[in-house]
């Protein structure tokens, strides 16, 4: 842990500082207390993670800069909203860094002077006095003038080696005041500030490649195996992709050397693939060492299995890289062999059609109707002869005696379809329904069942059955349904005690009538009172 070197300026001549302290009430006494816990979506971090601690510390170093922008609105002596304080702070650190040689730092006033153009650029309409004041405020804050130890402090939490959560303190400084040999005070940039604010932040944050590399490295180091597995698999896909592209090119070369650009395209592809292999080979061997170690050391059986899986995958990756490399090395040989075969075998003595250019492409461009003729011509010309297949007795006997083959290996099981039974055929034809409907269209007076049956029997011997059936329903008609359906009338049958005298049917000789439904009652709940039953009565 750093011990703030407060001794350096106590008692030394630091006029400008005192000057600021008196004037600037907002500066000073600001200790950065940051509590940073490494919570990770509920997944406990069982291992002590040095990387996380390092990142928390690095993040803490940027906090004073963000804080400048957070506190600028509270400045009473100017409207500081126009100034981007973090930007000025980074400029200040850069200026100090540039001015700093190995034994001398930058002079305080010198830094303020160098900062002025940047401050002025942000608010050109304000006067120079304010610019200078802003610059001094920023520099003082970077030194953290008001605090006793002139430094910053951050708290962070981390899981210790034992697995328990520990809260630790990180003390750091950004700009350090040092006394030169001649007694003057010089500013230097702390190692932390150089590492984080000058070095680490200078990264192309949008570079996907760097991100991927960092990610993989981190994942492996931090033991996040399932993600590492994904990353390794992605690298393997890339290798397979190269192999596939190469295979296609070689295949095309075997067809026609001139079809593939062997002057630029394929050599470039081979170079690219070889570079990829070299990188991956190195990376994956490193991963393999790491993971194998993780596998052997892991205590948790789940992690152990994951690591073992990853070892297999990485080994497969390496195997594929080796394969691809062998193919890449053989590619040139294939090309030369094909070139020899195709170019030096001499041209054939007869003219032939360019099947692709003369036939396939033109046919593809034709309308479907026109394409029938050329495709049919090609087919009948190119399919050989057909000969009549005659059944032969020898074969027939043989076929009949052959034990049926198990075709399970050829096809999947044929699914058994769900068979629904056919619906029963209608007992009465639609003509018969029409006839009974005509019979049952009673005008005014009710009729006896016996009369209806006799009349029906004259029309069709089957008709009485349908009549009887419909009258049975009429004994207890569904009046509610009829009202809901807005039917105009309903068939009713009433038993008045007269016995039925019929050769086919027995029972009561009911009275059958048509009851009109009262239209004025429509829309209300079915109410049987509205039915005019006078006809029936």
């Amino acid at each position, binding site marked *: 842990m750093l011990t703030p070197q407060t001794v350096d300026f106590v008692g030394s001549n630091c006029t400008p500082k005192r000057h600021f302290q008196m004037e600037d009430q907002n500066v000073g006494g600001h200790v950065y207390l940051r509590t940073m816990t490494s919570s990770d979506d509920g997944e406990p971090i069982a291992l002590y993670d040095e990387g996380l601690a390092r990142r928390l510390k690095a993040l803490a170093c940027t906090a004073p800069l963000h804080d400048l922008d957070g506190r600028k609105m509270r400045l009473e002596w100017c409207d500081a909203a126009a100034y981007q304080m973090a930007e000025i702070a980074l400029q200040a650190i850069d200026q100090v860094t540039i001015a700093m040689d190995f034994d001398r730092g930058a002079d305080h006033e010198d830094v303020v002077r160098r900062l002025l153009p940047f401050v002025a650029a942000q608010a050109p309409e304000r006067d120079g006095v304010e610019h200078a004041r802003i610059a001094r405020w920023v520099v003082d804050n970077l030194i953290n003038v008001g605090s006793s130890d002139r430094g910053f402090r951050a708290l962070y939490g981390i899981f210790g080696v034992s697995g328990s959560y520990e809260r630790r303190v990180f003390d750091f400084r950004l700009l350090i005041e040092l006394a030169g040999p001649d007694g003057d005070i010089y500013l230097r940039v702390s190692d932390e500030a150089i590492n984080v604010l000058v070095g680490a932040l200078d990264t192309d944050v949008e570079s996907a490649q760097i991100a991927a590399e960092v990610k993989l490295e981190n994942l492996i180091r931090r033991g996040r195996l399932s993600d590492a597995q994904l990353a390794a698999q992605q690298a393997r896909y890339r290798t397979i992709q190269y192999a596939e592209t190469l295979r296609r090119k070689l295949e095309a070369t075997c067809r026609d050397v001139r079809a593939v650009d062997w002057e630029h395209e394929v050599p470039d592809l081979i170079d690219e693939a070889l570079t990829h292999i070299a990188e991956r080979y190195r990376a994956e061997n490193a991963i393999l060492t790491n993971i194998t170690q993780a596998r052997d050391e892991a205590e948790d059986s789940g992690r152990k299995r994951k690591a073992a899986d990853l070892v297999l995958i990485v080994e497969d990756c390496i195997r594929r890289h080796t394969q691809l490399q062998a193919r890449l090395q053989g590619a040139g040989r294939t090309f030369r062999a094909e070139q020899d075969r195709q170019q030096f075998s001499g041209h054939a003595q007869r003219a*032939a059609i360019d099947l692709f250019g003369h036939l396939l492409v033109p046919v*593809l461009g034709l309308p479907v109707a026109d394409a029938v003729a050329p495709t049919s011509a*090609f087919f009948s*010309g190119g399919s*050989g002869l057909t000969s009549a297949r005659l059944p032969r007795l020898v074969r027939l006997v043989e076929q009949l005696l052959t034990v049926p083959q198990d075709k399970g290996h050829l096809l999947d*099981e044929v699914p058994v379809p769900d068979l629904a039974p056919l619906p029963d055929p209608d007992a009465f034809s639609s003509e018969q329904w029409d006839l009974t409907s005509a019979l049952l269209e009673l005008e005014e007076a009710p009729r006896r069942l016996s009369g209806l049956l006799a009349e029906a029997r004259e029309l069709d011997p089957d008709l009485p059955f349908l009549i009887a059936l419909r009258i049975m329903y009429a004994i207890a008609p569904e009046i509610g349904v009829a009202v809901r359906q807005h039917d105009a009338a309903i068939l009713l049958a009433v038993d008045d005690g007269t016995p039925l005298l019929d050769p086919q049917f027995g029972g009561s000789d009911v009275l059958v009538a048509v009851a009109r439904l009262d239209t004025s009652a429509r829309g209300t709940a079915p109410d049987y009172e509205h039915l005019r039953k006078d006809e029936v009565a």
Partner: protein
Amino acid sequence: MSAVDVIEQVTDAARLIAFGLRPRLMPSRDLCYTELVKRFAEDAVFRSFVESVAEGLGITVLDVSARTGIVLGPVADSAFEQKLDDYARRAILGDRHQERVLHGLAHIAIAALAFPRPDDLAADTYIGRVSAEQVGSVVREACKMLSAKAVAAEEAGDPLVEAPELEQVWRAYLRRPETALTKDGRPAPSTTQGVITKALRFLVDQGFLAKVNDDDGGTYRTTPRYQVQVRELAAERAFTELLALNVITVTDPGGSLRTVPAAPAEVTGV
């Protein structure tokens, strides 16, 4: 030549043609066949007998050699001719024209991939290799090129509702799914892969292709008979039909089947 001799000659000529009707039988497998092939090459009289018998049957003799055996082709409308209509009969649903064209197209594409350069078709010693996946992807690529050309030319592309047969073949091909599964998990025959696989298997049965392995949906090599058949008959006939339709293309002697340099489909097409 006595009458007995003539009868003997005719019998032998017919026998040679009968060998040709069994496409997978090679002269090297049958002593009698070898003898007849040799006689055809040396005996001009026998040769004219064979040709006459063939002509009577509605067959043309395309080639006779020890390597290929006797290669026969049907005369138009002969009893031995295979009709594309019958071949594509299974597909009764949908547009008959389109179905026939797609099946015929598969045969042209297989030949085009088996003999990518004109020289390959012409050189007797060339053995082509073709796989189902390769045929499918090359035809699709060619369709995409035509599609890009049509877009560039701003042609009104979509087919008319009342005249679906005027739709260009490449559109019909692109519309077909490459592959699909039937309900019980088998590859569907109506897809482009299904059509191509059917054609490949058919050509194997006809003794024109021999299966090498199952890579890339089935890899096959050509037999010498196929080369003769395509060169001497199929390509000529189809080309004549195209000429009758006034479709004349000029290509350079190197052929026109190329891989497109750095085409996105090539790089990403895994």
